C-alpha cells in the first residue's frame, strides 16, 4: 500500500473528495453562469417559464432530499462511532430510498411537462407564451440542470447500494468507514446543488 498509516489515508481521501467537489462546483457553475446572464437579460420570459412549473412539487422534492441528506449524515455518524454494520446498512438504504423517491417525483414532473408540450425543440408548443424563444431557453436550462443533477443522484444511489451491500460482510474494516464518509460528502454536495437549483428554477417571482 502506498500509504504509511490509516490517518494519512483518511486525510488523502478527504482532500481528494473535496477537490473533486470543487470540480463539480465549477462543472455546474458553467451552466449557472449562462443561466444567470440570460435570466438577467430576459427576466420576464424566465419568470413566465417559472410559472409553468409547480413550486409545491419542487418544495416537496427538496424536503425529500433534505431528509435523505439527514439519513446519510446518520449513516456516517454510525460508521464513525459504534460502527454497527446493521445500522449503517439501514441508514444507507433509507438514503437510497429517499433519493429514489426524489428521482420518481422528477420523472412524474417530466411526464407532465411532456404532455403540456414544454420540452425544448422535441415537443415544444408555446402558443400561450408571450416570448416563446426566451422561455424555451429557460426550459432548456431547467431540463439541462435537473437532468445533470438527476444523473449525479442516480450515480450516488448506485454507489450507496454497493456500499450498503458491502457493509454486510464481516471484514468491514476502518478503511470502509472512510468510504462511507466520502460517500456522505458526495451525497451532501448533490443536496447542496439542489438547494441552489430549487430557488433559481422554481421560485422565480
Amino acid at each position, binding site marked *: 500500500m502506498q500509504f504509511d498509516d490509516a490517518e494519512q489515508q483518511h486525510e488523502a481521501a478527504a482532500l481528494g473528495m473535496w477537490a473533486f467537489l470543487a470540480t463539480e462546483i465549477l462543472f455546474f457553475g458553467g451552466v449557472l453562469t449562462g443561466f444567470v446572464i440570460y435570466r438577467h437579460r430576459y427576466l420576464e420570459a424566465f419568470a413566465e417559464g417559472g410559472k409553468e412549473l409547480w413550486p409545491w412539487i419542487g418544495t416537496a422534492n427538496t424536503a425529500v432530499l433534505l431528509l435523505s441528506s439527514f439519513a446519510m449524515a446518520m449513516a456516517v455518524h454510525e460508521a464513525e462511532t459504534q460502527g454497527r454494520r446493521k445500522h449503517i446498512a439501514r441508514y444507507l438504504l433509507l438514503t437510497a430510498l429517499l433519493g429514489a423517491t426524489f428521482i420518481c417525483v422528477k420523472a412524474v414532473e417530466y411526464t407532465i411537462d411532456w404532455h403540456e408540450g414544454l420540452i425544448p425543440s422535441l415537443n415544444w408548443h408555446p402558443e400561450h407564451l408571450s416570448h416563446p424563444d426566451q422561455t424555451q431557453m429557460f426550459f432548456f436550462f431547467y431540463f439541462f440542470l435537473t437532468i445533470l443533477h438527476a444523473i449525479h443522484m442516480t450515480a450516488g444511489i448506485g454507489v450507496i447500494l454497493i456500499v450498503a451491500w458491502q457493509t454486510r460482510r464481516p471484514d468491514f474494516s476502518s478503511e470502509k*468507514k472512510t468510504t462511507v464518509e466520502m460517500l456522505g460528502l458526495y451525497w451532501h454536495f448533490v443536496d447542496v446543488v439542489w438547494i441552489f437549483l430549487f430557488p433559481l428554477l422554481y421560485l422565480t*417571482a
Partner: protein
Amino acid sequence: MTEHKTPTSTLFATLIALMVLLALSVVASKMLQGAAATTAALAIAVAKALLVGWIFMDLRRSSPLTRLIAVSGLFWLLIMVVLTAMDFATRGM
C-alpha cells in the same frame, strides 16, 4: 478520527433548521416581488448550504486545508460569474 463526533441531536436539529429555512424560502417567494425575492431566495439557499456544509459535511471538525479547498471551489465560480457578468453589464454603456 477525532474522538468527539457530532452528536445525533445536533444532526436532528440541523434537519429541522433546514426544513424551516425551506418553508421560509417558499413563503418569501410568495410575499416579496422582483429583486427582493431573488436576493431573499439566494440568501436562504446560502444559509442552507452553509448549514449542510458545516454540520453534515463535517467542515466543523475538518483541517483548515479541507476548508480552503471547499472555499476555493466557490471562489473560482465567483471569478467566472463576476468577470463574465462584467462584460454583459457594461456592454450598453
